[in-house]
């Protein structure tokens, strides 16, 4: 294995095996990722800081340790990217905002980054986020399948980085869908863990009662490995798991209405593959999905206003430097009646219980739905259009993801094909907190049977 032909396409387990049998060195892999950044980022603009010197130094150290028999596990020597709302010691956390353009470098790693580092991962740098992780466009980052399109957001930079092999794993955050949306839009895997699994210290908050950190990777197995390491859990086998006898809920109605023409066919084909793998896919509506989205929406709007207010308080000029959408959210969110916020809090408790009851009543291991109602939209005109129908990206892209932020369930996003426009389509698998293994088993079995992750975006993206 040599040079930049290593990536994209190399998985975390393949790289780890090659390190250990001497076929590959962490420095060689890190240089290959840095080459991919150099080759793609002029067009895709998914990185805000690349610490090339620091990364090479970390990779040299990782290689030295392995040669001395010090093995920190499956992420030892593996290149990793970090969304720019998460502190990395020595690098600024600018959160995609001009309000923080002069911020000093972080003194310490956020706990989740410290965990990555302790596991021997090589931190390459920080990836683009939509301003303060609030939104689904992630400017100026672009989609590697079509550089005139958005990558989704807000963890858009992290999704692009793993899609093009500029990193093998990446950290993102998900408050209303911000890991799953870009995963679907650029055709990679992403995992939103159950709420509360990771320490949020050193992470800029957006809506603290919903904020969740999680990994993105090109394959489900890459994500599963990263998650196991981050949570200090045993690594699952990468044997193809059996889905025989497993019941999967496939909600109709809310999750299937208003999909871009053709997407329902792509999703139905994915469900057919799951059935072929032995799963029993049961079409059962989740009647409270729309209420769950409303619940997460209210919590999100109020908490966003509270979290961003300190950046602009008493200073209209600073408010004017936020993007127009955030300006409205900061001012409007402070006027939301308190009773509505309390109603949303109460509804969340009930929805969490109701979802667990739904899974139990129908004897479901997980629920499978489309992730997005549309493929990646144009960066120049970011509106969802299908025939006569128009919908804002902010509303449309979170319609199917946000209900699961209200329930706080773990959700795995997996690529499930391509639409007629040639852009990736994704599905999401939602399960029970504590039973993440089932989600990874379903995702891995599907991914291998369907084979979509073998298709890679163009090596050098064309200008959009």
């Amino acid at each position: 294995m040599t040079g930049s032909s290593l990536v994209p396409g190399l998985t975390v387990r393949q790289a780890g095996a090659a390190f250990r049998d001497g076929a590959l060195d962490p420095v060689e892999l890190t240089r290959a990722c840095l080459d991919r950044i150099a080759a793609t980022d002029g067009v895709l603009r998914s990185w805000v800081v690349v610490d090339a010197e620091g990364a090479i130094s970390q990779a040299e150290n990782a290689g030295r340790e392995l040669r001395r028999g010090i093995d920190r596990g499956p992420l030892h020597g593996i290149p990793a990217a970090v969304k720019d709302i998460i502190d990395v010691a020595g690098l600024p956390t600018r959160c995609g905002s001009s309000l923080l353009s002069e911020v000093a470098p972080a003194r310490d790693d956020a706990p989740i980054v410290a965990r990555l580092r302790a596991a021997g991962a090589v931190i390459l740098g920080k990836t683009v986020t939509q301003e303060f992780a609030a939104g689904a466009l992630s400017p100026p980052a672009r989609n590697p399948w079509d550089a005139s399109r958005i990558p989704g957001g807000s963890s858009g930079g992290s999704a692009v980085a793993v899609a093009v092999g500029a990193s093998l794993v990446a950290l993102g955050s998900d408050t209303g869908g911000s890991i799953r949306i870009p995963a679907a839009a650029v055709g990679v895997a992403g995992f939103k863990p159950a709420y509360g699994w990771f320490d949020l210290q050193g992470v800029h908050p957006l809506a603290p009662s919903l904020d969740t950190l999680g990994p993105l990777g090109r394959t489900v197995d890459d994500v599963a490995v990263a998650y196991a390491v981050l949570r200090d859990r045993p690594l699952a086998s990468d044997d193809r798991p059996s889905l025989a006898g497993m019941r999967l809920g496939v909600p109709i109605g809310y999750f299937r209405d208003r999909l871009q023409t053709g997407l329902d066919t792509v999703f139905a084909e994915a469900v057919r593959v799951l059935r072929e793998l032995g799963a029993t896919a049961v079409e059962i509506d989740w009647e409270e999905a729309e209420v769950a989205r409303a619940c997460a929406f209210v919590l999100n709007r109020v908490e966003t206003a509270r979290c961003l207010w300190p950046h602009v308080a008493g200073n209209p000029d600073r408010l004017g430097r936020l993007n127009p959408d955030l300006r409205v959210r900061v001012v409007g969110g402070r006027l939301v009646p308190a009773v509505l916020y309390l109603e949303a809090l109460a509804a969340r408790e009930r929805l969490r219980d109701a979802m667990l009851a739904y899974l139990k009543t129908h004897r479901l291991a997980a629920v499978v739905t489309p992730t997005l109602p549309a493929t990646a939209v144009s960066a120049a005109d970011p509106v969802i259009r299908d025939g006569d129908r128009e919908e804002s990206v902010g509303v449309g892209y979170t319609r199917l993801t946000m209900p699961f932020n209200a329930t706080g369930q773990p959700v795995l996003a997996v690529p499930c094909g391509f639409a007629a426009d040639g852009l990736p389509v994704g599905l999401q698998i939602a399960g029970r907190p504590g039973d993440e293994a089932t989600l990874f088993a379903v995702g891995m079995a599907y991914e291998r049977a369907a084979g979509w992750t073998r298709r890679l975006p163009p090596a050098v993206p064309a200008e959009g």
Partner: protein
Amino acid sequence: MTAGTPDSDQMTGDLLKLARTSEFDVDAEALHRYFEELLEAATLLGADESTTVPTPFHPVAP
């Protein structure tokens, strides 16, 4: 109460008036859309009769 009904229009209007009294100047049309979307969410939350609001004033057992 649904967006576009007299009640919701009244509430949106009240919130917009409040917003105008703030020191910050934001786009009125965008703010109007923001409150409409919020009220749609409020309607969905309130429309579910099984929603129970926990009271912080549970009687203390003697």
